């Protein structure tokens, strides 16, 4: 008995025990925390309809990329898309699932949600520690009608590596040269100031209980908790509020069809109503999977989600992908995700 056989036998044994009565194996995936609520909701409805469950571990985007590369899951999930050359090197195919927004949340006594207006440069300067007081001239200039307190700004950001941080720092790098030069964009960066809190809930809790603080969370999270947020000035110079219509506006102008590997960043998009910190979240699967049946099951699930999951996504404040993009993704599956026989592992409708 070789070691491999023993491991295989143990694995089979565990699978039999674990699944018991289920007819088919659950779909396994891991990665980004940002889409977890909508994936969980989809999986729940899907199981009711088909009897096939999904086991998704929301361990963070970097974790998702690691797990798919280690082939411990059928699909990986990441908020930070892989570059086309990285995809090619690892033999992976990438496609987006839903769109969401990142929102600056604030706790300043006397300011109601949406009253405060910030632009990209000011936001970057705050998170870089260059603007340290709420009554700084730069903030005053954007908010001439508000009375701003003479208190220190307490910056709150993520301590764990996170797709949310990737999106946020990507935006700051686009709008601030000093941010791009000194800090850069990644799921974890060397933050010059502030307090690191774990997860979206950690950031929200700390902003909620610290007067004079500013942080950033996924919009779904800010909306559910009724957090006070700031409006932003977008690329066209318009002041916009974070809401579903404005996230959709940012996604509308994007030319997905001509982006290899769907490598598109939705931050700082043009358009009068575009929310500037918008992002899509992505799924990663192997182009030539070892186990084609598993990947077929996963694609079947996402196919179902594209067809029937839009309403569920909207209820959770996510934006479904435009229909043309979905059609394009399904064509990509047929073209790029192939079994050992050279045929597509899953034929979408």
């Amino acid at each position, binding site marked *: 008995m070789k070691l491999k056989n023993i491991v295989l036998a143990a694995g089979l044994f565990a699978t039999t025990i674990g699944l018991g009565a289920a007819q088919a194996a659950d779909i396994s995936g891991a990665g980004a925390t940002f889409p977890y609520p909508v994936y969980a909701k989809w999986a729940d409805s899907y199981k009711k309809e088909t009897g096939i469950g999904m086991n998704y571990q929301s361990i963070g*985007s970097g*974790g998702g*990329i690691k797990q798919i590369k280690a082939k411990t899951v059928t699909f990986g999930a990441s908020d930070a898309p892989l570059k086309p050359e990285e995809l090619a090197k690892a033999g992976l195919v990438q496609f987006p699932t839903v769109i969401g927004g990142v929102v600056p949340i604030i706790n300043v006594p006397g300011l109601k949600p949406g009253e405060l207006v910030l632009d990209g440069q000011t936001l970057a300067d705050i998170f870089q520690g260059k603007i340290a007081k709420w009554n700084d001239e730069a903030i005053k200039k954007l908010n001439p009608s508000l009375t701003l307190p003479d208190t220190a700004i307490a910056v709150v950001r993520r*301590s764990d*590596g996170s797709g949310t941080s990737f999106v946020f720092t990507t935006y700051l790098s686009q709008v601030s040269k000093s941010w791009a030069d000194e800090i850069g964009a990644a799921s*974890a*960066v060397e933050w010059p100031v502030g307090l*690191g809190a*774990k997860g979206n809930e950690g950031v929200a809790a*700390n902003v909620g209980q610290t007067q004079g603080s500013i942080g950033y969370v996924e919009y779904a999270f800010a909306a559910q908790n009724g957090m006070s947020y700031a409006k932003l000035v977008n690329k066209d110079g318009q002041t916009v509020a974070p809401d579903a219509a404005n996230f959709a506006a940012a996604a509308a102008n994007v030319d997905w069809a001509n982006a290899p590997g769907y490598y598109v960043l939705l931050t700082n998009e043009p358009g009068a109503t575009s929310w500037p910190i918008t992002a899509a979240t992505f799924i990663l699967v192997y182009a030539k999977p070892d186990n084609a049946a598993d990947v077929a099951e996963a694609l079947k699930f996402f196919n179902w989600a594209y067809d029937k999951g839009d309403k569920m996504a909207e209820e959770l404040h996510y934006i479904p992908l435009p229909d043309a993009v979905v059609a394009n993704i399904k064509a990509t599956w047929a073209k790029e995700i192939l079994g050992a026989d050279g045929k597509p592992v899953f034929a979408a409708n």
Partner: protein
Amino acid sequence: MDDAKLKRMRRFRAGDATFRGLTFGAATLVLLLLGGVIISLIHGSIPALSTYGLGFLTSQSWNPVTEKFGALAPIYGTVVTSIIALLVAVPVGIGIAIFLTELCPPWLKRPIGVAIELLAGIPSIIYGIWGLFVFAPFFQTNIQPFLISVFEPIPVLNSLFAGPPYGIGVLTAGFILAIMVLPFITSITRDVFDTVPPVLKEATYGLGCTTSEVVTKVVLPYTRVGVIGGIMLGLGRALGETMAVTFVIGNAHKISASIMAPGTTISASIANEFTEAVGDLYTSSLIALGLILFVITFIVLAAARLLLLRMNVKAGN
């Protein structure tokens, strides 16, 4: 000796040998496991240590974008939070133990004893949540502004207690750790205090000594090995504690003059960043942090042994 007796004797001897073998195996297993852990830690941290060399220990930068990593901030945070925890927990813990063994009315002994054991049984994540949602806001609104204003006119101390009142930071983490290690120190100290022979104490009282004299002149010297053992166990837990600290320390890779500013510890850094550590050098740097924590723990234990040895020499043993 007849045959039956001889047979029985042989069987006993064989049984003894098996027993000996089993226990020896159990004991060597520990060494093997420890060796395995050390080897895998060293192996995993080779990329980081060969890239940064000794600079890894002295650099404060922690930049995943440019892949420049240094361990100084987490080392500092680990050591400082543990020191704060011991400064608070040792006097309180020993105080409770003295009260329980020497002064406590019998009816109060059990409730306090049970409370301390319950404190030890609370999972660390609960301490973390409690620290974040209850203790930190309380600290932020009531204690922190008070500390800042009290120490403001005093030269060195004003920079130690400064900064915007986040509520979260090195000091808060130290306090939470103090609460977490308190039951370890207390219950071990109480148990060793109970081993002091009553005749010794009675004799001292007979000489006309007060309770405080009995404690400082008889109980503490008699039990110092056990007391130090309890403190070391507490220190070990404080050095390695992860979840509770992650919640309340602020997770900033930075050494600030103020102990109220956000900081980080080795275990908090690893817990926070491991899943998202893309890139081999990043992962390797985190494993190297783990190796450093291992070494720190080893040094602390060795220092404790040395301390005990010197105390024994001084005591004339």
